[in-house]
């Protein structure tokens, strides 16, 4: 076996074979890093690919004059590359994710209880939501309100209705104040909240339709599959011919965008 320093020098001078050899010898290193990113909702293979890019960068940039081991240099390089890749999604606040999970957990537990005529166990809900027991426990304690748009999307899962329809349906049945028995005198309170439902409903309706229209065909399909047809990210990925990681990232982006716009 050739000295690693010798291989590095050759690789940096453009010798493909040496470079490949270093990559091959360090595949295990990359995997051991990838394993640490398990549980963050990504496909391990995808992260492995990114990790290899980090490894190749490390090979190209490592200064053979350094008095450090190559692995000492490569580890943060590979980790950094993976973290950069995860960054977009990683910037989402946990509180947001937890609130959404909390909503899902509660609904799922209710459903299981109703179906079986007894209380749902943690394990059953974990299996149905694809969340770990610990995540469920955390989510249960994050029970603050869920953004109306998320609630709308989640509640319409499996039903063949448009989101815009769903909002109107939701507002009139569960709140039921769209009629004329509403007296909107909500001028009290520090922020002078206006609850003019008729107006707000109309606004929501238009806004959602507009938001959906603004999505490109793929994003629209993605939202439909995920929230109206109850598909998993994996299933959607197959339908759209993209990876599950891409679905996850797109979905989060779309929802974030929609929420932002809806709050204007």
């Amino acid at each position, binding site marked *: 076996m050739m000295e690693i320093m010798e291989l590095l020098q050759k690789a940096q001078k453009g010798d493909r074979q040496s470079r490949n050899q270093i990559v091959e010898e360090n595949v295990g*290193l990359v995997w051991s890093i990838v394993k640490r990113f398990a549980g*963050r909702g990504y496909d391990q293979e995808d992260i492995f690919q990114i990790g290899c890019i980090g490894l190749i960068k490390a090979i190209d940039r490592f200064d053979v004059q350094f008095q450090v081991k190559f*692995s000492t240099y490569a580890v*943060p*390089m590979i980790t*950094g590359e993976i973290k*950069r890749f*995860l960054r977009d999604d990683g910037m989402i606040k946990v509180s947001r*994710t937890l609130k959404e999970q909390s909503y899902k957990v509660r609904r799922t537990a209710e459903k299981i209880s109703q179906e079986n005529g007894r209380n749902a166990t943690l394990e059953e809900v974990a299996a149905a939501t694809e969340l770990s027991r610990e995540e469920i426990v955390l989510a249960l304690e994050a029970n603050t309100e869920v953004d109306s748009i998320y609630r709308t999307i989640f509640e319409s899962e499996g039903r063949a209705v448009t989101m815009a329809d769903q909002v109107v349906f939701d507002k009139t049945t569960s709140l039921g104040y769209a009629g004329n028995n509403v007296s909107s005198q909500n001028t009290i309170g520090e922020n002078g909240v206006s609850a003019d439902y008729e107006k707000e409903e109309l606004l929501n309706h238009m806004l959602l339709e507009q938001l959906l229209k603004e999505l490109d065909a793929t994003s629209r399909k993605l939202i439909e599959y995920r929230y109206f047809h109850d598909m998993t990210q994996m299933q959607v990925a197959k339908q759209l011919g993209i990876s599950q990681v891409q679905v996850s990232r797109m979905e989060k982006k779309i929802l974030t965008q929609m929420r932002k716009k809806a709050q204007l």
Partner: protein
Amino acid sequence: MKLIINNISENESFARTVVAAYMTRLDPTFEELADVKTAVSEAVTNSIIHGYGKEKGKIEIHCTIKGKTIHISVQDWGIGIEDIDKAMEPLYTTKPEWERSGMGFAFMDAFMDHLKVTSKVGEGTLVEMDKEIGKEQESVEPL
């Protein structure tokens, strides 16, 4: 807060959940939370596997928040580490036969802002680490 647990492997996921629950008050991002959980997991696993092995023992996890920084320490009273510098090198492991990869400390280091390891053979090991939460778009540049 201070958490004291036994050295059983069920407590690895329990310990990181507790730290996660504690730090939610800093409203971390998904990534920050995952980073801290990984680091805690590595430290606790080390205490269980290397610190105690087959012996019974306690592990103490201490968390404090100062401003936006979470400080975490993980302490065991196990066998201790002889050469800390060596132990902290990536890929260095004394347990290759158990499929350890020698990456634990490298990860604590990569995922946290600071890492300090104190240990004495026969007396135990103390890992201290901290991380500022909510930093503006911290850039993850290679060393």
